[in-house]
């Protein structure tokens, strides 16, 4: 069966520090991968999605970047965090067919001080 792992679960970082959040998927190949941010009590904002190794699409201009160095690995990064980067970050995968159900990790709660 397929599983998705996302870590860390919580992270407290100072303003201006770098960021690296990692997400890995097991049990499937060539998945579509997604990074979302969720503000408190709000819906999900799609940040990046990837349909293959090295293929990244950015949805909104921001202080973050994403990379996909391996088929089932998706990394969210920042060189210098801003206060506005605080939030709940969720990684998800779906099959490569359009509009299929997405399967989510348990998220990372990021607090910027």
């Amino acid at each position, binding site marked *: 069966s397929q599983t998705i792992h*996302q870590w860390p679960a919580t992270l407290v970082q100072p303003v201006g520090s770098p960021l690296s959040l990692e997400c890995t998927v097991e049990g499937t190949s060539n998945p579509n991968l997604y990074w*979302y941010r969720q503000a408190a*009590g*709000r*819906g*999900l904002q*799609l940040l990046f*999605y990837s349909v293959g190794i090295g293929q990244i699409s950015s949805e909104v201009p921001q202080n973050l970047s994403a990379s996909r160095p391996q088929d089932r690995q998706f990394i969210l990064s920042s060189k210098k965090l801003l206060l506005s980067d605080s939030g*709940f970050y*969720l990684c*998800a995968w779906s099959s490569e067919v*359009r*509009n299929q*159900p*997405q*399967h*989510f*990790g*348990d*998220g990372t*709660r990021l607090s910027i001080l």
Partner: protein
Amino acid sequence: SQQGEEDPQALSIQEGENATMNCSYKTSINNLQWYRQNSGRGLVHLILIRSNEREKHSGRLRVTLDTSKKSSSLLITASRAADTASYFCACGSSNTGKLIFGQGTTLQVKP
């Protein structure tokens, strides 16, 4: 905006009652999906209804879709305290191929 919009934003009911949540959207869709999120956790896919379907059932869940009104509803029958969570609709856009999530309905089921 293409986003799904849920109504109500919050709903509080007693155990055993039915809970109905509504979702409206603006874009052209291939399907519409409902997800559940427990506090501080990731989303879990509940049910998918295709644009050519009008109603779908899964256990205590019933989803309807009216493409002429661009709306969907999720009914949870005989609710339990364990159903307490946030529920999100997500539109599978036929234009972009992506899912567009609504803002969610927070459901509280009191024992």
